């Protein structure tokens, strides 16, 4: 009773139907689609929902906390009159909240004088500013080869058992935007308690510095709540960026858990399934999240989105990674092979790509030799992979001397360049110097993509 919202809202007790995450309320009036709903159980417990369908006097509501333990005779539904809005502003910084934005850190609820609808509005494509400056993560494999660009959406494709959460936490903890104000919004969906504790721990410093918003929906938390978590994260981020003038990195993990929540609701509604029983609108739904990145002409700040997803059974053609790949601007792929070699982060450089790197790295952005070094590393890596296949066939002894240098290069690349400590923040200078050290294991004749002046500067030996 005491929790009854004091908004003078009509409360309905006409609950007709409960199944899965859905509640059907009868005899409603003036209820709009996508409206936010507050349920009060007789025990005083509150639950929350969103209107999925309103047909004459009947509203279908998805309950974020699920319908477990709900007795239709002992629950009241109050419709708030608008789609869900949350307070926005710098008050979120330094806070740790659950997947609905309620505090987990013992502090008061987050207040703000301004509220925003969590669904957001699409950015006018004419007003978008093409991304052009880097976010430096301090992770060599990312900074050098798949540079993250402010306003980009770059997912990490991983598989079960790989240290993607460690990588996400490291990027969230270390990233900077060239001395300009920088914040991180970290949205975790369906992570285990141990993982949640790890994330809190790893990001403590950033949180204490007032540069982090942490939203945690654990595996034990309501599944449907996950549909809301990334939307809240992005709404907070958009305000911090375009009102607050900060560069904001939004990390969302695990998008596969999110898509499963979406599928659960879809199945409960009896919708016609598309691929692997995911709803047909999965592409548009994912796009409504990922596309909330970018820069806006005439406004400071940027929103950069880094979604993480685990590919079920490591299958890149699974709908979640596949549709994500169609929306995002490249991908960072983690591989079991690199992991088995003991390399952290286990980035598969040849499968990874940052489509915006050409705009966000190089002269005037990072370093004059950056793009050439990256191209040469990838070309040499591709050759090294061919050589390794050949070596498997004919044996190492049958390889030409040059080919054997490529095998050495491959090792140097994995252990001297990609591999780094989980708390190690490498400057771009250090990353590129390491790249040079690795490249110089090859004779100069094999470094045809590097202009002579760079080779001379690094005293690449002639011949070889």
């Amino acid at each position, binding site marked *: 009773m005491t929790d009854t919202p004091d908004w003078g809202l009509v409360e309905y007790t006409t609950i007709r139907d409960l199944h899965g995450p859905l509640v059907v309320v009868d005899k409603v009036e003036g209820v709009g689609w996508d409206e936010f709903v507050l349920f009060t159980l007789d025990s005083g417990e509150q639950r929350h929902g969103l209107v999925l369908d309103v047909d004459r006097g009947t509203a279908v509501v998805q309950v974020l906390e699920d319908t477990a333990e709900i007795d239709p005779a002992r629950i009241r539904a109050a419709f708030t009159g608008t789609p869900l809005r949350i307070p926005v502003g710098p008050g979120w910084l330094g806070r740790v909240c659950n997947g609905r934005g309620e505090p987990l850190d013992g502090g008061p609820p987050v207040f703000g004088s301004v509220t925003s609808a969590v669904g957001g*509005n699409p950015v006018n494509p004419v007003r978008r500013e093409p991304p052009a400056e880097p976010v430096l993560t301090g992770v060599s494999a990312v900074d050098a080869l798949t540079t993250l660009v402010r306003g980009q959406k770059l997912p990490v494709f991983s598989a079960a058992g790989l240290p993607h959460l460690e990588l996400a936490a490291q990027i969230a903890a270390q990233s900077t935007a060239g001395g300009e104000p920088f914040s991180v919004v970290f949205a975790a969906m369906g992570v285990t308690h141990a993982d949640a504790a790890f994330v809190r721990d790893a990001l403590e410093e950033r949180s204490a510095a007032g540069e982090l918003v942490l939203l945690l929906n654990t595996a034990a938390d309501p599944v449907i709540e996950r549909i809301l978590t990334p939307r809240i994260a992005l709404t907070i981020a958009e305000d911090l960026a375009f009102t607050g003038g900060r560069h904001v990195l939004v990390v969302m993990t695990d998008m596969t858990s999110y898509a499963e929540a979406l599928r659960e609701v879809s199945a409960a509604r009896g919708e016609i399934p598309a691929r692997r029983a995911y709803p047909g609108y999965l592409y548009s739904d994912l796009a409504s999240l990922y596309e909330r990145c970018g820069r806006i002409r005439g406004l400071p700040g940027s929103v950069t989105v880094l979604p993480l997803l685990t590919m079920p059974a490591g299958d890149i053609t699974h709908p979640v990674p596949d549709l994500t790949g169609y929306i995002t601007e490249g991908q960072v792929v983690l591989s079991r092979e690199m992991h088995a070699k003991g390399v952290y982060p286990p980035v598969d450089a040849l499968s990874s790509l940052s489509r915006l790197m050409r705009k966000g790295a190089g002269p005037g952005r990072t370093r004059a030799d950056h793009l050439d070094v990256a191209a040469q590393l990838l070309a040499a890596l591709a050759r090294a992979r061919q050589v390794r296949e050949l070596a498997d066939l004919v044996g190492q002894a049958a390889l030409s001397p040059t080919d054997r240098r490529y095998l050495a290069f491959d090792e140097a690349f994995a252990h001297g360049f990609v591999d780094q400590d989980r708390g190690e923040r490498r400057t771009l200078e250090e990353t590129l110097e390491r790249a040079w050290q690795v490249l110089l294991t090859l004779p100069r004749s094999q470094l045809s993509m590097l202009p002579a002046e760079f080779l001379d500067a690094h005293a690449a030996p002639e011949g070889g």
Partner: protein
Amino acid sequence: MGTVTGVSSGGGRILRVAGPLVEAEYVAGTAMNDLVVLGEAELPGEVVAIRDGVVTVQAYEYTGGLAPGARAHPLGRPLSAPLGPGLLGGVFDGLLRPLATAGAWLEPGAAGRGSGPTRQWEFVPRASVGDLVDQGDVLGEIHGSGPVPLKVLVPPGRSGAVDHLAGAGLHPADAVVASVAGTPVTMTAPWPVRTPRPVRERLDSPRALGTGQRAIDLLFPVALGGTVAVPGGFGTGKTVLLQQIAKWCDADVIVYVGCGERGNEMADVIDEFGALTDPRTGGRLAERTVIVANTSNMPMMAREAGIHTGVTVAEYFRDMGLDVVVIADSTSRWAEALREFASRTGALPAEEGYPAGLASAIAAFYERAGAVTTLGGRTGSVTVIGAVSPPGGDMAEPVTAHTQRFVRCLWTLDRELAYARHYPAVSWAESFSRDAEALGARRAATDDPDWPARRARVAGLLAEADRLADLVDLVGITALPAQERVSVLGGRLVREGVLQQSALSQRDAYSGAKKTAALAEAVLDVVDRCRELADAGVPPAHIEEADFTPVLRAREEAGPHDADTVRALGRSMLDRLGELI
């Protein structure tokens, strides 16, 4: 779109809202496909079904907060695109509302969609009062809208005497500038987007669209008025290829429909087209381009309309006697919008949840392409190039499979080629052009007698090299006879020296017909010389180890129309090979 005053009081009551699906009471005078304005926010929507006194509306905007009991007001006319000056160089949403005057965030409804002041355009009469005119005849021209003057035509279905004609000078875009047998003619006139604009007759076009991309112009050419599908998984360079064609192809007008794609990419297109110079007119590329931008997070149903809006705009320019190319990226997202809505209306699903009408919807879209004689007797064309995004790279999925049946050309992008950094990754084995034969015959009869033979030789060499590549994997290259080894080498030279083309290259992003022909000739001559050498007993390993840099670098060394440099490099290569004997 037009705002209707007192909307909230008229019309029928809304009964149901489920995302973009809205049901409302039927009111007299509502017809299928009519535009409906929903609720106080005046969200636009379209009637898609009428049954038992209930109208089903597909809403074009986010319907959050819209409740049963609000009003749905039918406007008594179908969704129409305002066709007139101001389209060229503009960026619009799927309903052809200008985006340049909208705010940074696109809010649903009329809010934030100010159309700005009505611009004045220079009208020049090209007829006289009293003239007897027929449909499609020219009444006047509009200047200042782009590199070519636009024509004001007698509307379809009208004919008679010109009884009023405005004088030369500036007129607002919506002004009446003429009257034919009592029918007023405006500079900007609406046309229902789902109705093809009428033509006098369809033609078999023997004219090729020059795309400037060698893999296409040489192997899989498309005729003006043809249809092309470009299937490719993510990362195969689909968008880059389409943008290259939009930039460099030799059409008069480009309509670029960004349909459910990336916002940053759209921003890039808008930026680049505004900065690049059109090599043919010297103006900015943007001035021959109309961009319909409906990014993936913009309302899904407007995406569905955007495809039709884009083709309608193209037909408008076609009717003036222009060659227009419509590029739709991506038709798969459009089909998904169809599926989404069909699923909400409870339509029986066919394959993978797509509605049973998917194939006919795709066919109807591509059918709006064509080379025609316009009502006024001019020759014009609409060429449609549609990207297809097969989920998981599965070419058997419904959108890809159906599209292949309805198009004249298929440019399949191959993931293996893309991973090997072979761009554009147009697969020679999986693509086709049903126009190639007719276009080849035409080229042979006019400016390039060798065209069909050259294409056949390049295609034959690629197929032979592919066949042998499988063998090489098994037995090794050294096990092959000399001539076969030359074929493998020849395949590599064609791929690297002719087909590869970097979109980022200063000189080679665009390749003119003469340069394309010269490059193919140069490589074929080199292969011929290699065959002679092999016949003369030169060990194939020696031939393979020769430095082929001159023919491989020729595409980068020569400018877009520079066939002479290519020929010179080809000759120096032949000389170098001569030293092997």
